[in-house]
């Protein structure tokens, strides 16, 4: 008997297939988590982080690695204007994490910020409630450098839990009034948002518990 086969069209791949994420999702995510955990446990001290993959620009490998390690369907992600302008970024994040990408910063659990100079006020993101201060956003800020940070760099003096004595960190580009913004965030404690600076090859944590001033 002869089968009459209908000719089915060859499925065509979408214009841009999302590139690969972690080479090993289990150990890649674990290593990145440990870097982020160490960074938040020791504010201001850079923790080495190697992503091992290349996300679509302007998303940097380090910022992407943090999101791929920590985000899933439970964590809406907010993208700032430069990232939202490139559809491949949202497609890449959705493909690898399954996380919804939201446009309202108040609905986000994670925020990815490629241009910290133009970032919204920290209080635009969820800061938790007095009963549940953990129901708050984590902001991942892409910076181009830590020690040698160029003209738009800010220098911060840090004290508080996780800091032995005092720590000093320079990073940029960051808003010139970042210390003031972080101080306002600290005044909300235990509410507030937590910041992760994603620099080439390292992350720096600035949790809400840290006392920040310029210097």
């Amino acid at each position, binding site marked *: 008997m002869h089968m009459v086969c209908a000719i089915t069209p060859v499925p065509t791949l979408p214009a841009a297939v999302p590139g690969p994420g972690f080479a*090993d999702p*289990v150990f890649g995510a674990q290593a990145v*988590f440990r870097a982020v955990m160490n960074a*938040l446990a020791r504010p201001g001290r850079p923790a080495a982080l190697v992503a091992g993959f290349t996300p679509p620009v302007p998303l940097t490998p380090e910022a992407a690695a943090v999101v791929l390690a*920590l985000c899933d369907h439970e964590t809406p992600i907010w993208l700032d204007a430069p990232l939202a302008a490139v559809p491949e970024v949202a497609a890449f994040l959705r493909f690898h994490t399954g996380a919804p990408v939201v446009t309202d910063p108040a609905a986000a659990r994670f925020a990815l910020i490629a241009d910290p100079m133009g970032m919204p006020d920290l209080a635009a993101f969820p800061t938790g*409630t*007095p*009963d549940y201060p953990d129901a708050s956003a984590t902001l991942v800020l892409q910076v181009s450098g830590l020690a040698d940070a160029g003209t738009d760099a800010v220098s911060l003096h840090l004290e508080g839990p996780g800091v*032995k004595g005092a720590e000093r960190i320079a990073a940029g580009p960051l808003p010139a009034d970042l210390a003031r913004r972080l101080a306002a965030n600290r005044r909300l404690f235990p509410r507030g948002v937590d910041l992760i600076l994603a620099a080439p090859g390292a992350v720096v944590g600035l949790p809400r518990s840290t006392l920040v001033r310029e210097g």
Partner: protein
Amino acid sequence: MNAMVTGSEAEMPEIGYNFAYLDEQTKRMIRRAILKAIAIPGYQVPFAAREMPMPYGWGTGGVQVTAAVLGPDDVLKVIDQGADDTTNAVAIRGFFEKTARVATTTRTGEASVIQTRHRIPEQKLSEDQILVYQVPIPEPLRFLEPRETETRELHALAEYGLMHVKLYEDIARHGHIATTYAYPVEVAGRYVMDPSPIPKFDNPKMDDCPALQLFGAGREKRIYAIPPYTRVVSLDFEDHPFEVQHFAKPCAMCGARGVYLDEVILDDRGGRMFVCSDTDHCETRQAEGHHGEMWGGMLAEDAR
């Protein structure tokens, strides 16, 4: 060491288990809770604790935190009341040897992750170490106020008068603060926290500790943390300052002073001895040639 689980079948972990038993979504959920716990020192972060292949009360919270933190290059130590060789410690160490194939040790100095039930090791911890506590009841106010909605409110308002009343009642009744374990602490000047049922002897070790301290309560579904170099103060009164236990005699096996000792009953005629609760500390000292009053006697008895 077991860097990758690919390769020959001999190197594969137990069939059907992800690395360190938990699935990746569970690990992400726990990891996010750990990060918030670190950002808000002493605050109890709710998390969706899973059923583990061991009963509640046997360290399911600590096991889940350890599983979320652990990597292939970690060296794990597990202690139960200071001992590496008790049932709980042996079972949990075996669990991670089987499901994560990580290296394990009994030496405090060699471990990168130490899971503990009810003790902090005597040896000072380093910056490269993580101490994971098993916590039965994370809420320090629970026996004073049974309603979760109320205790949550009390934490939100930093209203800890109840706890001071409890400690005051100790003084009124006994003449001193009679709380000897799970002694409440204030973390980073904000949250009052249950340090888990460690003896109050260990409380000072939590203050300004170079290591990261993570707490997991499985049945109660809470994770909390003390970042390194954080101020941890045991609650007290000006006229009744916090004090740790003192022991009349040194360890009977290694002669150590200023360590926490366990009482061991030797016979049915009132014979007893006090030995280090931290078995690694005691064995290390004995190997270094330190001996207590019973050391020779034990050897002579072994010889018989």
